[in-house]
């Protein structure tokens, strides 16, 4: 976790403890609770007695007709599924499955929370507990017995709902499959649907697939040349390129220091962050951003003379965080074409501490082609992030320098090392931006382990995907999914691939409802042989619906290959996510996947029960319910604040609000940082319920990986075991007679 990263100066052992303090807390609780406080009770522990208690809890729940909630849920599910609006047969099946599993989880969690929170307080209130604890039963057995008992109730409910889900889905899928077979037989399918329906008929509607995700998605202005390291991004922000940097705090901020505020006075916190961009450009039409001064003044007779000395195009430089979110806009950085010019602009900025938009990194005109220290030739642009802003990087795990073209009718050629970051040397009389006295910051390595980690992206779409414009003109926008060390899943028909994209036809002039089928032209580039293979038939895609195709088996020689996509339809664009194209590695029975999903729901319900029992040992049941919900949602809640919390936040707030009073700044900065740290520590301690996602994968037809179950089990054990111990210690020291 981030908050303890600044302790990395401690010795190795201490460092390990700092990084695993959650585990230590668990160990201390368990050892203290079971070996120090309750050694006698542990020795006397009897599973038979715990099972007897669990039997009573189970009998009570059954006889109080808790299970009656399941038929009600089943009726509700059947009712709701009648009103769904599905995109196709598989979507209908998946929607139904999602509703079934959601209802299962909801019903089980609600029942678990209410049963487990009310049981102990009611037994104490009704004094039934008198006749229990006066028997030779330890409080540990009481707690465990209750947890086991309600876990049995939850399991019974899950089994009932699971059986219903299985039956209902099998019947629904069978009906839909019959419809598909009929439509295919009668030819009642569109061109777009035919392949998809064929795949449904072949693989079934419930079959879960295992996928292999590509290592990288790149969207380029032109198809990448296999024999060149140059890549193209188009003009006007159609594409951009991001160069990734890890957050090496020692490299960026200097020697470690426990006091976060002191980071502001060393490294980039003292001298700012200098960025140098090196690329080449090529005009693809008339220049659109020439200064007005070069335009002829007065009436022009005949053809206007073309400007003879075109000034270079512009780019903008920004900084994104590790999650591709805006961090520092170009207008917060000083920009320039050359390092010398940048020094002047920094001096200018330093006089007033106000940034003239004309001197910012937004729309920097590239330099004339120059030779760089590394021997390459290109056009450069520079940016400098002031130190008081650069301190904001401290609380991130990485950052990315974004370069985007700001001139029209220009192709920008990006080499393998387009961005360099430096800690400049700034001394009186000595100002070195990227020379020998500046400190170069190492970028993240690329997906092959060499070069820099570059992300070429398309324009951001409304679904947070990257847009790839369609059109048959060359050179055309191309998306490249890069697979490295992909498993061999070659069948006799080739390598199966699933594509799931968003299609935007909003610019299409064709009447709505009569649009052309959206066609993806697919090629495969084998990394080893550099051989490019085109698929004979385009792949027809539709929004939110999967499309399937197979790469010919002889197109690739190893697990390293790129899949190139291009949309042939003019005025349409395709929204792509890094996982929009997936390699299908295997199929799995629906039943196995369903059992995995239900197992995760059961594990979640056990966690809910443990937390509820813990809360009920010291609270009345209504308050216990509230606290249980808070504890279960706490981690998620802090996660929502994750982007803004973290060390350095206090300093940033002080800067943002321009506090001038030193004492007040210190108070605000320390207070905010402390609060932020507390929140992060609380988040560490609370269970991460997002690890119990039992629905998303199975709904998407994805084989739930074993790791998912292991993750859920880890959270259950990590939070559940100490919670049981705490509950035991609390009950052991509780006077159960009111």
């Amino acid at each position, binding site marked *: 976790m981030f908050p303890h990263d600044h302790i990395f100066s401690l010795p190795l052992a201490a460092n390990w403890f700092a990084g695993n303090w959650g585990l230590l807390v668990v160990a201390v609780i368990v050892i203290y609770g079971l070996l120090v406080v309750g050694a*006698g*009770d542990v020795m*006397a522990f*009897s599973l*038979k*007695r715990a*099972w*007897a*208690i669990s*039997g*009573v809890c189970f*009998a*009570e729940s059954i*006889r*109080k007709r808790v299970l009656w909630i399941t038929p009600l849920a089943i009726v509700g599910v059947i009712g709701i599924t009648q009103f769904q609006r599905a995109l196709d047969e598989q979507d209908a099946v998946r929607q139904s499955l999602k509703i079934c599993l959601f209802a299962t989880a909801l019903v089980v969690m609600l029942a678990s929370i209410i049963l487990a929170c009310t049981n102990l307080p009611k037994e104490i209130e*009704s*004094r*039934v*507990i*008198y*006749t*229990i*604890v*006066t*028997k*030779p*039963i*330890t409080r540990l057995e009481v707690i465990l017995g209750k947890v086991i008992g309600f876990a049995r109730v939850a399991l019974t409910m899950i089994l009932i709902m699971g059986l219903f889900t299985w039956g209902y889905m099998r019947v629904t899928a069978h009906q839909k499959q019959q419809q598909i077979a009929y439509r295919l037989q009668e030819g009642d399918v569109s061109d777009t649907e035919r392949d998809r329906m064929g795949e449904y008929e072949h693989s079934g509607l419930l079959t879960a697939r295992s996928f292999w995700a590509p290592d990288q998605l790149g969207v380029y202005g032109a198809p990448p040349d296999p024999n060149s390291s140059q890549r193209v991004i188009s003009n006007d922000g159609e594409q951009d390129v991001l160069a990734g940097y890890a957050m090496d705090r020692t490299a960026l901020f200097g020697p470690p220091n426990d006091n976060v505020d002191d980071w502001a006075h060393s490294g980039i916190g003292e001298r700012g962050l200098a960025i140098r961009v090196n690329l080449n450009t090529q005009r693809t039409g008339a220049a659109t951003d020439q200064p007005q001064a070069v335009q002829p003044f007065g009436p022009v007779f005949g053809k206007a003379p073309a400007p003879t000395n075109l000034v270079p195009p512009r780019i903008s430089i920004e900084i994104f965080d590790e999650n591709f979110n805006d961090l520092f806009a170009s207008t917060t950085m000083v920009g320039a074409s050359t390092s010398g010019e940048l020094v002047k602009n920094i001096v200018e900025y330093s006089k007033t501490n106000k940034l003239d938009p004309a001197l910012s990194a937004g729309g920097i005109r590239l330099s004339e082609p120059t030779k760089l220290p590394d021997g390459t030739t290109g056009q450069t642009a520079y940016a400098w992030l002031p130190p008081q802003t650069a301190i904001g990087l401290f609380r991130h795990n990485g950052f990315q320098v974004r370069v985007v073209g700001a001139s029209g009718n220009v192709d920008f050629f990006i080499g393998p090392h387009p961005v360099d970051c430096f800690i400049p040397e700034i001394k009186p009389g000595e100002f070195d931006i990227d020379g020998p006295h500046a400190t170069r910051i190492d970028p993240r390595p690329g997906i092959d382990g060499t070069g820099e980690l570059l992300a070429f992206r398309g324009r951001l779409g409304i679904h947070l995907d990257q847009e790839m414009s369609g059109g048959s003109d060359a050179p055309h926008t191309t998306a490249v999914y890069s697979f490295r060390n992909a498993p061999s899943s070659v069948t006799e028909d080739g390598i199966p691939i699933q594509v799931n994209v968003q299609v935007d036809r909003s610019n299409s002039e064709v009447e709505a409802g009569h649009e052309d089928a959206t066609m993806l032209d697919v090629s495969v580039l084998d990394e080893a042989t550099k051989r490019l293979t085109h698929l004979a038939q385009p792949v027809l895609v539709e929004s939110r619906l999967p499309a399937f195709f197979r790469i010919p088996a002889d197109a690739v020689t190893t697990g390293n290959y790129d899949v190139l996509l291009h949309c042939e339809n003019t005025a349409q664009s395709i929204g792509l996510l890094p996982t929009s194209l997936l390699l299908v590695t295997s199929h799995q029975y629906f039943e196995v996947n369903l059992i995995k999903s239900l197992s995760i729901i059961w594990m979640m319900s056990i966690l809910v029960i443990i937390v509820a029992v813990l809360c009920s040992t010291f609270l009345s049941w209504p308050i216990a319910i509230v606290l249980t919900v808070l504890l279960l949602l706490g981690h998620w809640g802090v996660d929502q604040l994750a982007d803004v919390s973290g060390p350095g936040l206090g300093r940033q707030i002080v800067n943002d609000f321009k506090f001038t009073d030193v004492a007040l700044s210190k108070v605000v900065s320390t207070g905010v940082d402390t609060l932020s740290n507390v929140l992060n520590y609380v988040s560490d301690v609370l269970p991460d319920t997002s690890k119990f996602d039992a629905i998303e994968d199975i709904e998407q037809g994805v084989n739930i990986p074993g790791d998912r179950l292991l993750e859920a089990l880890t959270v259950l054990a990590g939070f559940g075991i100490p919670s049981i111990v705490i509950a035991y210690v609390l009950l052991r020291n509780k*006077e*159960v*007679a009111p």
Partner: protein
Amino acid sequence: MIPTNDEAVHTEHLTKVYKDFWGRDKVRALDDLNLTIHRGEVFGLLGPNGSGKSTTIKLLLGLIFASRGTATVLGHPAGDTAINERIGFLPEESYLYRFLNGEETLKFYGRLFKIPRAELKKRVPALLDTVGLDAKARKRKLREYSKGMARRIGLAQALINNPDLILLDEPTTGLDPIGTREMKDLILSLKQQGKTVLLCSHLLADVQDVCDRITILFRGTMQTIGQVKDLLQVKDVTQIQTGGMTDPQIVEIKTFLSRMGVKDPIVTHPTTTLEELFIRIVRENTAGGQSSVGST
């Protein structure tokens, strides 16, 4: 004082003070109780409501913790889970799972003592017979039980482990006179089996009938302790009992006693207790000796 093997219960300066939310003293429920109950005796804990009887029992069972002082039960610290193997407890009301039936209740408590299934199969019906719950009543849920039936099943659960020490908190509450008599008979039979019984009640007649020794608590403090017969003995009155006498014989006896200098002698026919009368009438009218309990 160190407890001896002869002592079933021993307390020293046992004190319980209930505190409020802020930790301030609220109620001193029991104050400096020094008490020893010997093995094999029936001991009565008497006192009005709020005198500290139930508090004492809760302390001995570990349901609450002492503010000061110590208590040992069968040689172990009070509240020790292991010693619960040898203790039976009947609370002042039958605090049992109301969704279980009589048999299930006893089987559940039997499992807490890890009594083998085969043994439970024999012991449960025998205990239900002992407390007078018939076959029909055994299959009914406890929520349908009358107060008397609930006391009986409560007593059965207290005896499921064949305990050495039985703590009975108001055992006759809710019982009719026959049930009360049966309860008292059972207590006496437990005494005959060598078991120790700690009886807590404010029904003095019940205590008088069965207890060997008693103590009286008032406002958390022990007022007196001793043998029942010693405490109840009226030393300045002498009672002579004979077979039935005629009226002339009574007059002659009175004259004789006056001559002997005895002041205001009373010579009359003794009366039975209402309880004895009730039991005799019910027993005479109960065909075949069937229990009246559980037939509703």
